[in-house]
Every structure is written in C-alpha cells, then in structure tokens.
C-alpha cells in the first residue's frame, strides 16, 4: 500500500452496561483510513455506525464507553485522550445543522470562536479565515453576521462544513451530513464536501444509511450490521458484487429508478435486525440468512476470512481448492 495510514481502529468495542447485561454497540471492529480517501460506513439504524464515529472522536455518552481495542492516529495512540484531537485534528459534521449550530450567535462568531480555540492566530486573521471559509463553501461572505435561522437547510449545512474545515483538520467525520436535505441540495452539499476534501487531501469518514450517497461519494466502503463489520472493500466491488448475504439483501431491497423495476415487488430480507440484548450466537445475521448452515449458528465469522465476514465464502474457497 502506497498511501499512508492516518487512522487505525484495532478491534474496538463500545459497550453499555445495562440491567440486561453488557450490550456491545460496536463489537470487535477494525478499520483503517488512508490519506486522501473517503471511507463510507453504511448500515441501518442500530448497526453501530454512528457509535464508531463517536468512539473515534471521544463523544460516546455514558454509560457507554470504549471498552476494548486501540485507536491510532498517525503514530500516536489516541483512545485515552480523544478530546485533545477533537476539533483541531478531527472535525465532525452532524446530521442536523439546526442543532449543531448555536441559534443565538451569528455564523461569523461561531467560525471565529472555533478558529481561535484551535489555532494560534490573531483575531483579525481568524476573521479573515472565517470570511474565506464562507466564500469557499459558496456562501456570500457578506452574510457573516447573519444568524443560523436566516439560512436554508442546505446553506446551514454549508456553514457547518465551513466550520469543520476552518481548523484545517487532518480528518473529517461526517455523520449523515445530507439526510435532512432535499435531493437536489444533497447532491450539491456532497459535491462540495468531496471537492474541498480532495483539494486539501483531507480524508473523510462518511457515515450514512443511503447506498446511493455512498455509491456516489466514497471509496472504499464498510458495511456494518448489529455492531459488527460485515463487509469491506472497494465501493464498486462491494455494491456491484456484494459477497455477504446481508449486503446482497440490502442492495436488492434498495428501490431504483431502473425501468426494469417499475411496479415490481422489491426483494425483502425477512425479519429485522436483532436487538443488542438478543444477539444470536455465531453470525449476527444467521436467523435472517437463507444460506445459514450449522457453522453460522455456532462460530462468529470475521472479515479476516476474506472481504466479507461470512462462512459461506470460506466453504466456497475450500471447495474450490
């Protein structure tokens, strides 16, 4: 691999102590982010994708905690003191720009405050950077003294992107950045995020539930299910030739604007994602999987077996050998 590894998650585990025992929201997850790439993490609600983002930046709400594993940022182990990196080295973009911006302060104030808090610059320079930042995301710098409510949803998310990039972070984590937006605005905001990060060479972790958004913006992608990594690989390979039965089902149940699918019933995966306090033994997907066999119900597969965490692939390989 030629690209440098910026972030590495080694077997991390996020767990919550509850009355029903310890629940693992993220279970034995390993991922790497290379310089300059946009890693997509996709999964349905409860899959643990947002929890993974929160773990990196140290924003897991108690009683949850990072209970095992290591997070490496460059050559430094950071899981003990994630606050040190938050804001300065790693920025986060949240889903709802109306709640991530302070409604009582102008966007300029918020930009300047963020820059001053994290960078050794003068007030004047911070103001100049705030103006440049707004211009870069396509907002008229004259609106620097406007309040968040004066902007539309898409414009607000642009402000949030400007805020996230203002401190020249080394990594941006975007958690469902376009879910609250209309499709036409979504396309603009995604393009903007992609362009700015590519220009700066800043890697992005894009967390979303939308396969279309992932397909158009990130490479590689990681698919999560019930807190576990189920499949990881190049976006094109994973989406056009998914190996894990869950990814296959997810792709087949995504409605498309393809003429062949008009009026036809969608494929549906039976059942629902198990609750974390009632995970089946073995592969978490086995009760919904039509190919599940004995081993799937007993042993838990891991991605090390191949691109996807699935025993089927292993038996196929053994059969071929």
């Amino acid at each position, binding site marked *: 691999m030629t690209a440098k590894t910026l972030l590495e998650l080694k077997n991390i585990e996020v767990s919550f102590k509850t009355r029903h025992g310890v629940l693992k929201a993220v279970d034995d997850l390993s991922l790497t982010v290379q310089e300059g790439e946009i890693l997509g993490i996709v999964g349905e609600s409860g899959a643990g994708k947002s929890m993974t983002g929160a773990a990196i930046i140290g924003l897991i709400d108690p009683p949850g905690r990072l209970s095992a594993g290591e997070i490496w940022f460059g050559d430094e182990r950071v899981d003990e003191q994630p606050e040190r990196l938050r804001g300065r080295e790693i920025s986060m973009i949240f889903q709802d720009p109306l709640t991530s911006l302070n409604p009582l302060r102008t966007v300029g104030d918020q930009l300047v405050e963020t820059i001053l808090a994290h960078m050794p610059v003068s007030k004047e320079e911070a103001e100049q950077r705030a103006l440049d930042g707004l211009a870069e995301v396509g907002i008229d710098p004259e609106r620097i003294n406007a309040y968040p409510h004066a902007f539309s949803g898409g414009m607000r998310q642009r402000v949030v992107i400007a805020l996230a990039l203002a401190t020249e972070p080394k990594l941006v984590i975007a958690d469902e950045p376009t879910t609250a937006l209309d*499709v036409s605005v979504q396309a603009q905001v995604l393009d903007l995020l992609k362009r700015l990060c590519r220009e700066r060479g800043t890697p992005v972790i894009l967390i979303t539930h939308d396969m279309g958004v992932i*397909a158009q913006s990130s490479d590689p992608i990681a698919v999560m299910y019930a807190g576990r990594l189920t499949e990881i690989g190049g976006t094109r390979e994973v989406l056009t030739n998914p190996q894990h039965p869950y990814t296959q089902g997810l792709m087949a149940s995504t409605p498309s604007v393809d003429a062949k699918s008009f009026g036809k019933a969608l494929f549906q995966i039976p059942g629902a994602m198990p609750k974390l306090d009632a995970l089946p033994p073995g592969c978490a997907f086995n009760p919904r999987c039509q190919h599940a066999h004995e081993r799937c119900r007993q042993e838990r597969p891991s991605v090390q077996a191949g691109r996807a965490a699935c025993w089927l692939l292993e038996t196929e390989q053994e059969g071929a050998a």
Partner: protein
Amino acid sequence: MSFVVASDLTRTFDLSDPWIVRALTLRPKRILKAVDAVNFQIERGSTYALVGESGSGKSTIANMVVGLLQPSSGSITIDGRNLADASLSRREQQAQRRRIQMVFQSPYASLNPRWKVGDILGEPIRAFGLIDGAKAQQTRIAELLEQVGLSASDAGKYPHEFSGGQRQRISIARALSSQPEVIICDEPTSALDVSVQAQVLNLLKALQKDFGLTYLFITHDLAVVSTMANRIGVLNQGVLVEEQDTADLFSKPQQDYTKMLLSAAPKIEFS
C-alpha cells in the same frame, strides 16, 4: 369520471403580521400560495404519486384530500362526492370520511403512546360504528393485525414495544380498519431503514391488490415512486409542473425541474 378528482385545487396561508403591526409599519399582507391551481385524477385501484422537495406543497395537498385542511378554492371529489360540500349532511360526511384514510410519515408521532394497539385499531371501528360487540371487534382487530404481518397477541401491547417498521404496520392496520377505498400515504417509509422500507412497500402493494385500494402516495424519493406508482405528478412550489405515467416520466421527462430531480437522485451505478 375518475375516482379521485382534484380540480383547480388551491390553498393559501396568511403569513401577515397582526393588523396593528401592519398599520404601524405600512407593510402589506403576506399571502403564501402553498398549492396553486393543481389538477389531477386518480383511477380506482391505481397509485398516483406526488413528488416534490420540501415546501412544494405535497403534504398540503394530502391534508386537503383527506379533509384535514379546507381548500381555499377548487375542489376534490372522491367517487363524485366533495367532502367540503356544505349540502352534505353530517351523516353523509362521516360516511365519506370512512372511505378515506391516511398513513403518516412518522410512526413514532402518529400513534398515541398511551393507548394499546388494540385500542388504536379499534377506535375507527367504534367511531364509524362498523362492528357491534366487543368480541366481534376483537376478532376484527386480530384479523387486521394479521393482514399487516403482525400477530393477534400484539393487540395488548403499547406502541413503544414495536420497531419503526412494525409501528408503520400498525398505522397501516389502523388505516385499513375503517375499510377505506382511498389511502393517502404521506412519506410512509422515509423514517424507515432500507430493508424495512422494502417490507412496508411490498405490504402496501399486496394490500392494494387484495382490497382494490386507491393510493395517493406523497414522497420526495423518486426511487420509491418508481416501484409504487402508476402515474406521477411533479410539484414545484405549489405548481404541478409535470404529470406522466411512471415509465414515461423516467424515460422522457419534459420539464427541466423533473430532469434536475432525476439527475440529483443518488444512483448506484458505475460507469
């Protein structure tokens, strides 16, 4: 004549300041035209989809069709009857209401958290006086739950005991409980995950086939529309800019706005 007919449907909202403020500042009244002279027809047993971005007026139309909002002008007739018609007696109005039901976007907000599922499904049955006797009502509730893929024993549970997809099934069962002919689905799956969305869309389709239901489907998601609708109307700022059969709209969009919507929709394809 078509089963559902909207003719010159218009709805305005008065956003003006109080009159005293207007008198002092000399500002004129501000009237927002949320829906502007919209015409469409839906055939019995088919699905008509209204597509548009936020603020396009699609939910306002849904609310007018179901009778939650009065049109400012224009009319909606269902099977030749206008719900807003003042000459209709109360009884006739109620009979008309029974035929139109709605499934809302958020299954978290549209089910009363303090009511058991059985009470939620039983209310329309009692309100319209459809079935007499507690025993017969319970049998009907059990039947409804099974029709939407839940089990009869779920009647004794509260909404919070169900997942999002299951709650939306309860909403659908509630809509079905008055034996309606038209169901308005206002973004019924946008709060759901993809795999659950597929289950709910397939359920809606199967029910349409079984009961000959007519759907008015409101959504912002063109992909969802393509699998559900027979005919699609595209709304932009309260105006119906284009209307075509599903296959034609996707292959031969006429208006620039429609083309823009189609090209902006995220697609899973690689060149």
